[in-house]
């Protein structure tokens, strides 16, 4: 077994309700830094809900109630004194459906640095180029930075959203089924990209696609009906699951 990496995000006894429905039940997970962690499980099992706890996007849901702790670098992010804006800057997110703003490609990537106060054009140029390069979109986009981002293909749009996230220099990137709206070629590009990203970032990815989880992730968590059933190194979870439920899901007997 390799050396255990430091933990960057941890939840302890996390319970979450949407109105009367409990969506997460006593979830405790420790996400290792600079690794790719995949969350898998059938629809409605709470994967995306858990992911949205990490950057407090559930704040936007009006009747959502949370118990237990979610800590980032050891600090409870649900503490009322915690600066949610700062948290989201450090913990970036890529959504299921590509959601570029109706602005130019350049302005999309520069948006984050700009809202965080960067005004220097030369610096912005540099950030935009670096982010687009890291998101493997530079070669396709460099001649059309002034064009509307809505003119890009779906896969390009998703890489633009990744570049946009990278531009604010987060530690953690949350990806909520980033490839579910994409074709296989675009998916392959994003998967390669995820592999490159873990050199600098912690990536947590929710996916429906078990092959994808096994291809891209170092750690895998299997969730079922709001509970985290099993969490461990991907190889172990897929080859020798400890729980019967996990094995049945992975071998395709339900879900």
């Amino acid at each position: 077994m390799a050396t255990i990496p430091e933990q960057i995000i941890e939840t302890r006894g996390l319970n979450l309700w949407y109105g009367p429905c409990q969506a997460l039940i006593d979830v405790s997970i420790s996400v290792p830094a600079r690794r790719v962690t995949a969350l898998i499980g059938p629809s409605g099992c709470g994967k995306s809900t858990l992911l949205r706890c990490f950057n407090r996007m559930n704040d936007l849901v009006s009747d959502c109630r949370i118990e237990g702790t979610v800590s980032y670098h050891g600090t409870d992010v649900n503490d009322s004194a915690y600066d949610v804006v700062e948290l989201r800057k450090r913990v970036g997110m890529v959504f299921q459906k590509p959601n570029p703003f109706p602005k130019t490609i350049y302005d999309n990537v520069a948006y984050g640095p700009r809202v965080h106060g960067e005004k220097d054009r030369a610096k912005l140029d540099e950030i935009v180029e670096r982010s687009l390069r890291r998101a493997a979109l530079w070669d396709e986009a460099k001649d059309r930075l002034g064009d509307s981002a809505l003119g890009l293909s779906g896969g390009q749009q998703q890489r633009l959203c990744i570049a946009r996230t990278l531009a604010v220099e987060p530690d953690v990137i949350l990806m909520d089924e980033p490839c579910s709206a994409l074709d296989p070629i675009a998916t392959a590009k994003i998967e390669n990209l995820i592999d490159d990203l873990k050199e600098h970032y912690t990536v947590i990815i929710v996916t429906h696609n078990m092959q994808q989880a096994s291809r891209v992730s170092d750690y895998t968590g299997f969730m079922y009906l709001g509970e985290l059933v099993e969490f461990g190194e991907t190889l172990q979870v897929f080859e020798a699951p400890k729980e019967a439920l996990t094995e049945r899901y992975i071998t395709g007997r339900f879900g």
Partner: protein
Amino acid sequence: MNQASSVTPPPTRMSSSPLKETAISIIWLLCALFAVVTVFFILLYLVWDGLPLFNEYGLWPFLAGVTWSPTFDPPAFGILPLIVGTLLVTAGSMVVAVPLSIATAIYLSEVAPYRVKVLVKPAVELLAGIPSVVYGFFGLIVLVEWLRVTFDAPSGESMLAGSILLGIMALPTIISVSEDAINSVPREFREGSLALGATRWQTIRQVVVPAALSGITAAIILGMGRAIGETMAVLMVTGNAAIIPSPITNVLSPVRTLTGTLGIEMGEVAIGSLHYHALFALATVLLVITLIVNLGASMILKRLNARATGRAHAGRTVLESIFRHPATSAAPIALVALLVVAVIGSMGGPYYAGAALLVVAVLALVVPRLSRARSQQLAFLLIYAAVGAVLLILAIILFDIISKGLPALSWEFLTSSPRDLGREGGIFPAIVGTLCLVAGSIAFALPFGVGAAIYLVEYQRDNRLTRTIRTGVDLLNGTPSIVFGLFGFAFLVLFLGFGVSMLAGQITLGLMVLPTIIRTTEEALKNVPQSLREGSLALGATRWQTIGRVVLPPAAPGIITGMILSIGRAAGETAPILFTAVVFSQRYLPSSVFDPVMALPYHLFILTTNVPGSETNKYGTALVLIMLVVAIYAVAIVVRNRYHTTMRL
């Protein structure tokens, strides 16, 4: 549908004859054509009656002449001061309405907690429901007096009074259309921005509002159209002197608008005289201005729609490029600030102007240096202040009218005829008259409106004909109500010989509410899922069977809501019936549709402007009118909420 599984109908019952189907579709087509034909007919009729003026007086002296004195010898028909008056009052109203409306729209869609939102929204809708004559009444009695005292002016009847009042009246239009535009910005944009660590205000300012800017632009233009076309309220508070204010920033100068001129002079003009034709020529100019404004708005909205559905790579509007370009994004704000300084200067002298300039300069220096959290606080504070102002305005109007109107209400007031020019007695004939006018107008407009909408949605979704029809409906919708009144007078009262009669008023009001009925019905039909139609057609039902049994039932609440809204609108309108249907005093109820009637809005208008010393009965009439209209709207809101239709009031 539900019984189809248990009972198998004989084939003959499902397949109705193709002839009948064709006949039905032709009926709906005729309804739709009626709407377009009406528009072009109104337009032609006005131009036709205006032509003699152009021939005898000339187009240029008419448009550019600076004197409007139609009863002098020789008469002068220069409408430049009237055009300037209209433009000034409208521009002023936008200065009042735009900041308040946009802030309120942002508040409603982005900031307000759900529980507050469900209270504020009906309040805004209530503001829309108050009839314009009631605004004029309130403006004349309260606002004008307040301005006179505050600015120590000889009279408060001024451009400023008109601007404030029209600004208030334009609020609901701009708020509701902007709110729709902001709401339709995809949730993903907000989440995307927040997930990058932007504050809520940064997200609103840099992502949400820019994405909704076309819609907001259209909202402003629609509000402008409403302000330009408004007659009664403006007529009652602007003083109506046909002069160009000097200097032009003198907001306390009286002005006269195009609509006001029609409202004042049409009733007294000698029919067939040059003055008569001049008024039609003036109406044509008014109509052309509003047509341009409304076409502009609908073009922007259409393009927005095309962009939202990804069908076109639409370019930007001028406003958008100004706001989005970093170098010019502050320009509109600077312009407004300078304007405010100029107005303050012209009212209070150079010291005030200097002080105002200083405030602007300090703000311009301080605001960009605030931290992100502080600027969010400041922005939200301003938004709360704007919403507070809107609610306060409503509260003041309602409190004034309710507190002074309640003492007038009595059984006798509601059931007896007016005496002593309305100072004594009641308003019974006016209530009956208004109910008759409304009932007749809906009976006239509903079949045509629903039929036209069915044709537009169910038979022809998009081709040249439907586009022409839709444009016609848009134009009809934007036509100022006084123009309907003028048309009704010239065509129904004089040409068809109905005389000043209930029937003429009903048809005129019916034409006015036709576009509302068409549009709300269209929306209701479009909300019925396509899968329902396909399900029915796949069972072998004909088109009409599908519409009648599957589409119309779920659309009914929406159609009924549209109808109720039209009733409310028709009940409160004054301008269309001013020359077509009403008399001020009538001892007996009308015995046939060719008799003239009394009506609440007109009664209030005359009491307010022509009968001194009728305080109690004025307020009583205003209160009854408001209660009537609000009750009608309340029913519409209940229907809407009950059936979860997404109809805009």
